Protein backbone atom coordinates (compact mmCIF):
# COMPACT_ATOMS: atom_id res chain seq x y z
CA UNK A 1 0.00 0.00 0.00
CA UNK A 2 1.62 3.30 -1.07
CA UNK A 3 2.04 5.84 1.70
CA UNK A 4 3.40 9.33 1.92
CA UNK A 5 5.52 10.47 4.85
CA UNK A 6 5.31 14.14 5.73
CA UNK A 7 7.88 15.25 8.34
CA UNK A 8 6.62 18.37 10.10
CA UNK A 9 9.14 20.92 11.26
CA UNK A 10 8.32 22.55 14.57
CA UNK A 11 9.89 25.14 16.80
CA UNK A 12 12.22 23.85 19.49
CA UNK A 13 9.83 21.99 21.77
CA UNK A 14 10.58 22.50 25.47
CA UNK A 15 9.10 21.36 28.80
CA UNK A 16 7.02 24.57 28.78
CA UNK A 17 5.07 23.33 25.76
CA UNK A 18 1.87 21.35 25.74
CA UNK A 19 2.15 18.46 23.31
CA UNK A 20 -1.41 18.72 22.01
CA UNK A 21 -1.01 22.45 21.40
CA UNK A 22 2.23 21.86 19.49
CA UNK A 23 0.47 19.26 17.33
CA UNK A 24 -2.45 21.60 16.80
CA UNK A 25 -0.22 24.51 15.78
CA UNK A 26 2.09 22.68 13.40
CA UNK A 27 0.03 19.73 12.13
CA UNK A 28 -3.50 21.05 12.54
CA UNK A 29 -3.81 22.57 9.06
CA UNK A 30 -2.18 19.54 7.44
CA UNK A 31 -4.07 16.68 9.05
CA UNK A 32 -6.63 14.75 7.00
CA UNK A 33 -9.01 11.97 7.87
CA UNK A 34 -7.23 8.62 7.78
CA UNK A 35 -3.79 10.05 8.60
CA UNK A 36 -1.54 8.56 11.25
CA UNK A 37 0.40 11.01 13.38
CA UNK A 38 3.77 9.73 14.52
CA UNK A 39 5.43 11.58 17.39
CA UNK A 40 9.06 11.11 18.41
CA UNK A 41 9.37 9.69 21.90
CA UNK A 42 12.04 12.24 22.88
CA UNK A 43 9.74 15.14 22.07
CA UNK A 44 6.94 13.58 24.12
CA UNK A 45 9.36 13.04 27.00
CA UNK A 46 10.59 16.64 26.79
CA UNK A 47 7.05 18.04 26.95
CA UNK A 48 6.58 15.89 30.05
CA UNK A 49 9.69 17.45 31.58
CA UNK A 50 11.54 14.12 31.73
CA UNK A 51 14.95 15.80 31.73
CA UNK A 52 17.66 15.39 34.33
CA UNK A 53 20.95 17.22 34.58
CA UNK A 54 23.78 14.75 35.27
CA UNK A 55 24.96 17.13 37.99
CA UNK A 56 21.73 16.37 39.85
CA UNK A 57 22.27 12.61 39.83
CA UNK A 58 24.53 10.97 42.35
CA UNK A 59 25.56 7.58 41.00
CA UNK A 60 25.71 4.87 43.64
CA UNK A 61 28.24 2.06 43.80
CA UNK A 62 26.05 -0.28 41.78
CA UNK A 63 25.55 2.25 39.01
CA UNK A 64 29.29 2.94 38.92
CA UNK A 65 30.06 -0.75 38.73
CA UNK A 66 27.36 -2.00 36.34
CA UNK A 67 27.89 0.87 33.88
CA UNK A 68 31.46 -0.36 33.34
CA UNK A 69 30.11 -3.54 31.79
CA UNK A 70 27.88 -1.76 29.29
CA UNK A 71 29.32 -1.07 25.84
CA UNK A 72 30.59 2.50 25.65
CA UNK A 73 28.23 3.38 22.80
CA UNK A 74 25.20 2.68 24.98
CA UNK A 75 23.54 5.35 27.14
CA UNK A 76 23.79 3.10 30.19
CA UNK A 77 27.58 3.10 30.01
CA UNK A 78 27.24 6.38 31.87
CA UNK A 79 26.73 5.84 35.60
CA UNK A 80 24.56 8.97 35.68
CA UNK A 81 22.07 7.65 33.11
CA UNK A 82 22.12 4.24 34.77
CA UNK A 83 21.44 5.75 38.19
CA UNK A 84 18.55 7.74 36.70
CA UNK A 85 17.11 4.44 35.40
CA UNK A 86 17.67 2.80 38.79
CA UNK A 87 15.80 5.64 40.46
CA UNK A 88 12.77 4.92 38.27
CA UNK A 89 12.85 1.18 37.78
CA UNK A 90 14.33 0.22 41.14
CA UNK A 91 17.91 -0.56 42.06
CA UNK A 92 17.16 -4.19 42.87
CA UNK A 93 15.49 -4.78 39.52
CA UNK A 94 18.48 -3.35 37.64
CA UNK A 95 20.96 -5.38 39.72
CA UNK A 96 18.93 -8.54 39.14
CA UNK A 97 18.77 -7.78 35.40
CA UNK A 98 22.53 -7.30 35.37
CA UNK A 99 23.20 -10.63 37.11
CA UNK A 100 20.74 -12.61 34.98
CA UNK A 101 21.95 -11.01 31.75
CA UNK A 102 25.58 -11.72 32.69
CA UNK A 103 24.73 -15.42 33.05
CA UNK A 104 22.63 -15.56 29.89
CA UNK A 105 25.36 -13.77 27.97
CA UNK A 106 28.09 -16.15 29.13
CA UNK A 107 26.22 -19.45 29.20
CA UNK A 108 23.47 -18.95 26.59
CA UNK A 109 25.36 -16.48 24.40
CA UNK A 110 22.25 -14.30 24.29
CA UNK A 111 22.50 -10.53 24.07
CA UNK A 112 20.04 -7.84 25.15
CA UNK A 113 18.60 -9.50 28.26
CA UNK A 114 19.73 -6.62 30.43
CA UNK A 115 17.58 -4.16 28.49
CA UNK A 116 14.65 -6.58 28.44
CA UNK A 117 14.76 -7.15 32.21
CA UNK A 118 15.84 -3.80 33.61
CA UNK A 119 12.62 -2.06 32.65
CA UNK A 120 11.38 0.16 29.84
CA UNK A 121 13.45 3.14 30.86
CA UNK A 122 16.67 1.17 30.41
CA UNK A 123 16.01 0.97 26.69
CA UNK A 124 14.56 4.45 26.30
CA UNK A 125 16.93 6.67 28.27
CA UNK A 126 19.20 8.97 26.28
CA UNK A 127 22.40 10.05 27.93
CA UNK A 128 23.89 13.53 27.45
CA UNK A 129 24.99 14.11 23.83
CA UNK A 130 22.08 11.89 22.76
CA UNK A 131 19.52 14.60 22.06
CA UNK A 132 19.44 17.73 19.97
CA UNK A 133 20.68 20.93 21.73
CA UNK A 134 19.94 22.36 24.24
CA UNK A 135 18.86 18.97 25.60
CA UNK A 136 22.29 17.49 24.83
CA UNK A 137 23.22 18.59 28.35
CA UNK A 138 20.48 16.45 29.89
CA UNK A 139 19.72 12.83 30.48
CA UNK A 140 16.37 12.38 28.73
CA UNK A 141 14.18 9.63 30.14
CA UNK A 142 11.54 7.82 28.12
CA UNK A 143 8.01 9.27 28.12
CA UNK A 144 5.55 8.43 30.88
CA UNK A 145 2.26 6.70 30.05
CA UNK A 146 2.64 6.81 26.26
CA UNK A 147 -0.67 4.93 25.85
CA UNK A 148 -2.53 7.83 27.45
CA UNK A 149 -0.72 10.29 25.19
CA UNK A 150 -1.72 8.54 21.94
CA UNK A 151 -5.28 8.19 23.23
CA UNK A 152 -5.39 11.94 23.93
CA UNK A 153 -4.10 12.73 20.43
CA UNK A 154 -6.74 10.48 18.87
CA UNK A 155 -9.49 12.00 20.95
CA UNK A 156 -8.57 15.57 20.10
CA UNK A 157 -7.67 15.24 16.42
CA UNK A 158 -9.68 12.17 15.38
CA UNK A 159 -6.70 10.41 13.81
CA UNK A 160 -4.57 7.40 14.70
CA UNK A 161 -1.44 8.20 16.69
CA UNK A 162 1.87 6.54 17.46
CA UNK A 163 4.85 7.29 19.67
CA UNK A 164 8.01 5.90 18.18
CA UNK A 165 11.67 5.64 19.09
CA UNK A 166 13.57 5.64 15.81
CA UNK A 167 17.19 6.42 15.11
CA UNK A 168 19.66 6.70 12.27
CA UNK A 169 21.09 3.27 13.10
CA UNK A 170 18.07 1.60 11.48
CA UNK A 171 16.32 0.73 14.73
CA UNK A 172 12.70 1.62 15.44
CA UNK A 173 10.50 0.75 18.38
CA UNK A 174 6.84 1.59 18.87
CA UNK A 175 6.12 2.67 22.43
CA UNK A 176 2.40 3.10 22.03
CA UNK A 177 -0.10 3.15 19.20
CA UNK A 178 -3.85 3.53 18.88
CA UNK A 179 -5.83 0.49 17.75
CA UNK A 180 -6.12 1.28 14.06
CA UNK A 181 -2.38 1.45 13.39
CA UNK A 182 -0.61 -1.14 11.23
CA UNK A 183 2.47 -1.43 13.45
CA UNK A 184 4.44 -3.68 11.08
CA UNK A 185 4.07 -1.20 8.26
CA UNK A 186 5.13 1.68 10.49
CA UNK A 187 8.19 -0.13 11.76
CA UNK A 188 9.21 -0.80 8.18
CA UNK A 189 8.69 2.85 7.23
CA UNK A 190 10.55 4.21 10.23
CA UNK A 191 13.60 2.01 9.95
CA UNK A 192 15.00 4.74 7.70
CA UNK A 193 14.09 7.34 10.33
CA UNK A 194 12.38 9.90 8.07
CA UNK A 195 12.26 12.41 10.93
CA UNK A 196 16.06 12.44 11.24
CA UNK A 197 18.26 12.26 14.31
CA UNK A 198 20.09 15.56 14.24
CA UNK A 199 19.07 19.16 13.73
CA UNK A 200 16.12 18.51 11.45
CA UNK A 201 13.69 19.48 14.22
CA UNK A 202 10.94 17.38 12.70
CA UNK A 203 9.60 15.42 15.68
CA UNK A 204 6.20 14.86 14.07
CA UNK A 205 5.57 12.85 10.93
CA UNK A 206 2.24 12.46 9.20
CA UNK A 207 1.75 9.09 7.49
CA UNK A 208 -0.82 9.36 4.71
CA UNK A 209 -2.14 6.63 2.48
CA UNK A 210 -2.08 7.54 -1.19
CA UNK A 211 -4.19 5.76 -3.76
Amino acid at each position, binding site marked *: MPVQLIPVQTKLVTPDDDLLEVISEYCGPLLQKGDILVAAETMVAITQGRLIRPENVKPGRWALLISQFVH*QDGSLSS*PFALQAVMNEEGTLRVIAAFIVSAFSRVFLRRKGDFYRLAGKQAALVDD*ITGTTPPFDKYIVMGPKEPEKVVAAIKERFGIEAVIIDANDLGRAQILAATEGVDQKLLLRLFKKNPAGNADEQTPLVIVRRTS
Partner: protein
Amino acid sequence: MSFLVAFLACAGTLSAALALYYWHLGDQNILFDIDAVQDLLVQHDPERNEIICRCSLPLTNRGEQQGMVNNVFCQPVYCGKIMKGMEIKSQINVVKDKARENGYWESLIVKKNAHFMTQLEVRIRHNSVDIPTLIRQVPRLTIVIYYQIVGRKGIQWKLAELPLPLKEAQLPAELKQKKVVE
Protein backbone atom coordinates in the same frame (compact mmCIF):
# COMPACT_ATOMS: atom_id res chain seq x y z
CA MET B 1 29.38 -23.46 59.25
CA SER B 2 31.64 -24.59 56.43
CA PHE B 3 28.94 -23.52 53.95
CA LEU B 4 28.93 -20.02 55.47
CA VAL B 5 32.72 -19.80 55.28
CA ALA B 6 32.67 -20.94 51.65
CA PHE B 7 29.92 -18.44 50.82
CA LEU B 8 31.78 -15.56 52.48
CA ALA B 9 35.02 -16.56 50.75
CA CYS B 10 33.26 -16.60 47.36
CA ALA B 11 31.54 -13.26 48.01
CA GLY B 12 34.84 -11.73 49.15
CA THR B 13 36.73 -13.03 46.12
CA LEU B 14 34.03 -11.80 43.75
CA SER B 15 33.97 -8.34 45.36
CA ALA B 16 37.76 -8.12 45.20
CA ALA B 17 37.73 -9.23 41.55
CA LEU B 18 35.11 -6.60 40.66
CA ALA B 19 37.00 -3.89 42.52
CA LEU B 20 40.20 -4.87 40.71
CA TYR B 21 38.39 -4.85 37.37
CA TYR B 22 36.91 -1.41 38.13
CA TRP B 23 40.31 -0.03 39.07
CA HIS B 24 41.99 -1.66 36.07
CA LEU B 25 39.58 -0.02 33.60
CA GLY B 26 40.92 3.44 34.39
CA ASP B 27 39.21 6.69 33.53
CA GLN B 28 39.11 9.36 30.85
CA ASN B 29 41.81 12.00 30.76
CA ILE B 30 40.46 14.71 28.51
CA LEU B 31 42.48 17.91 28.32
CA PHE B 32 42.74 21.08 26.32
CA ASP B 33 46.32 20.63 25.18
CA ILE B 34 47.71 24.12 25.71
CA ASP B 35 51.18 22.86 24.78
CA ALA B 36 49.98 22.17 21.26
CA VAL B 37 48.35 25.49 20.38
CA GLN B 38 48.48 26.12 16.64
CA ASP B 39 47.78 28.85 14.12
CA LEU B 40 47.78 31.77 16.48
CA LEU B 41 46.66 34.88 14.69
CA VAL B 42 46.40 38.32 16.28
CA GLN B 43 44.78 41.00 14.13
CA HIS B 44 44.26 44.68 14.90
CA ASP B 45 41.36 46.64 13.52
CA PRO B 46 42.15 50.32 14.31
CA GLU B 47 38.86 51.50 12.79
CA ARG B 48 36.81 49.50 15.24
CA ASN B 49 39.52 49.77 17.92
CA GLU B 50 39.38 45.99 18.17
CA ILE B 51 41.95 43.22 18.66
CA ILE B 52 41.00 39.78 17.41
CA CYS B 53 42.94 36.73 18.62
CA ARG B 54 42.35 33.31 17.14
CA CYS B 55 44.08 30.02 17.74
CA SER B 56 43.52 26.31 17.34
CA LEU B 57 43.60 24.20 20.45
CA PRO B 58 43.53 20.39 20.49
CA LEU B 59 41.13 18.63 22.84
CA THR B 60 42.66 15.25 23.55
CA ASN B 61 41.71 12.15 25.50
CA ARG B 62 44.82 10.46 26.88
CA GLY B 63 42.92 8.24 29.28
CA GLU B 64 41.76 4.65 29.12
CA GLN B 65 38.07 5.37 28.72
CA GLN B 66 35.87 7.71 26.75
CA GLY B 67 34.39 10.83 28.27
CA MET B 68 32.01 13.61 27.33
CA VAL B 69 32.88 17.29 27.30
CA ASN B 70 29.56 18.65 28.45
CA ASN B 71 30.19 22.32 29.20
CA VAL B 72 33.01 24.68 28.28
CA PHE B 73 33.32 28.26 29.45
CA CYS B 74 36.09 30.71 28.72
CA GLN B 75 36.69 34.08 30.29
CA PRO B 76 39.56 36.54 30.71
CA VAL B 77 41.64 36.86 33.84
CA TYR B 78 41.53 40.30 35.46
CA CYS B 79 44.31 42.47 34.08
CA GLY B 80 44.11 45.65 36.09
CA LYS B 81 42.07 48.84 36.17
CA ILE B 82 42.31 49.21 32.41
CA MET B 83 39.82 46.37 32.20
CA LYS B 84 37.06 48.74 33.30
CA GLY B 85 36.55 50.08 29.81
CA MET B 86 37.26 46.81 28.05
CA GLU B 87 34.73 44.70 26.25
CA ILE B 88 35.98 41.11 25.83
CA LYS B 89 34.07 38.45 23.94
CA SER B 90 35.50 34.98 23.94
CA GLN B 91 34.13 31.77 22.48
CA ILE B 92 35.44 28.33 21.79
CA ASN B 93 34.07 25.93 19.19
CA VAL B 94 34.87 22.49 17.91
CA VAL B 95 36.16 22.63 14.35
CA LYS B 96 33.93 20.29 12.39
CA ASP B 97 31.77 20.25 9.28
CA LYS B 98 28.63 21.52 10.92
CA ALA B 99 30.11 23.66 13.67
CA ARG B 100 27.77 26.09 15.39
CA GLU B 101 28.98 29.62 14.94
CA ASN B 102 26.97 31.02 17.80
CA GLY B 103 29.34 29.87 20.54
CA TYR B 104 27.08 27.12 21.85
CA TRP B 105 29.17 24.21 23.04
CA GLU B 106 27.44 21.02 21.96
CA SER B 107 28.17 18.09 24.27
CA LEU B 108 30.89 16.02 22.69
CA ILE B 109 31.98 12.42 23.12
CA VAL B 110 35.77 12.03 23.07
CA LYS B 111 36.77 8.41 22.69
CA LYS B 112 39.94 6.93 24.06
CA ASN B 113 43.02 8.26 22.19
CA ALA B 114 40.83 10.56 20.09
CA HIS B 115 41.31 14.27 19.64
CA PHE B 116 39.31 17.16 18.25
CA MET B 117 40.56 20.52 17.13
CA THR B 118 38.86 23.51 18.69
CA GLN B 119 39.11 27.16 17.80
CA LEU B 120 39.30 29.89 20.38
CA GLU B 121 38.37 33.40 19.34
CA VAL B 122 38.75 36.43 21.58
CA ARG B 123 37.63 39.94 20.58
CA ILE B 124 38.88 42.81 22.70
CA ARG B 125 37.71 46.42 22.48
CA HIS B 126 38.32 49.39 24.71
CA ASN B 127 35.97 52.34 24.78
CA SER B 128 38.52 55.01 25.67
CA VAL B 129 42.05 53.70 25.05
CA ASP B 130 43.58 53.09 21.61
CA ILE B 131 45.20 49.78 20.66
CA PRO B 132 48.90 50.76 21.13
CA THR B 133 48.19 52.12 24.63
CA LEU B 134 46.17 49.05 25.47
CA ILE B 135 49.00 46.73 24.37
CA ARG B 136 51.54 48.69 26.41
CA GLN B 137 49.46 48.15 29.51
CA VAL B 138 48.27 44.65 28.71
CA PRO B 139 50.88 42.91 26.53
CA ARG B 140 49.13 39.59 27.00
CA LEU B 141 45.68 38.58 28.12
CA THR B 142 45.17 35.30 29.91
CA ILE B 143 42.06 33.36 29.05
CA VAL B 144 40.79 30.73 31.46
CA ILE B 145 39.03 27.75 29.94
CA TYR B 146 36.89 25.96 32.46
CA TYR B 147 35.41 22.69 31.25
CA GLN B 148 33.23 19.93 32.56
CA ILE B 149 33.92 16.30 31.73
CA VAL B 150 31.30 13.66 32.34
CA GLY B 151 33.11 10.37 32.49
CA ARG B 152 32.31 6.79 33.39
CA LYS B 153 33.61 7.39 36.89
CA GLY B 154 32.08 10.75 37.63
CA ILE B 155 32.08 14.43 36.73
CA GLN B 156 35.28 16.45 36.70
CA TRP B 157 35.83 20.16 36.26
CA LYS B 158 39.15 21.09 34.72
CA LEU B 159 40.83 24.35 34.06
CA ALA B 160 43.33 25.50 31.46
CA GLU B 161 45.02 28.90 31.29
CA LEU B 162 46.04 30.28 27.94
CA PRO B 163 48.06 33.50 27.75
CA LEU B 164 47.35 35.31 24.48
CA PRO B 165 49.76 37.99 23.20
CA LEU B 166 47.92 41.05 21.97
CA LYS B 167 50.65 42.27 19.59
CA GLU B 168 49.68 41.88 15.97
CA ALA B 169 51.50 38.76 14.85
CA GLN B 170 51.53 35.02 14.46
CA LEU B 171 53.44 33.92 17.51
CA PRO B 172 52.98 30.28 18.40
CA ALA B 173 56.24 30.23 20.39
CA GLU B 174 54.95 32.76 22.90
CA LEU B 175 52.19 30.41 23.87
CA LYS B 176 54.45 27.72 25.19
CA GLN B 177 53.74 28.68 28.76
CA LYS B 178 51.68 25.73 29.77
CA LYS B 179 49.54 25.76 32.82
CA VAL B 180 46.93 23.10 33.29
CA VAL B 181 45.25 22.72 36.61
CA GLU B 182 43.02 19.73 37.31
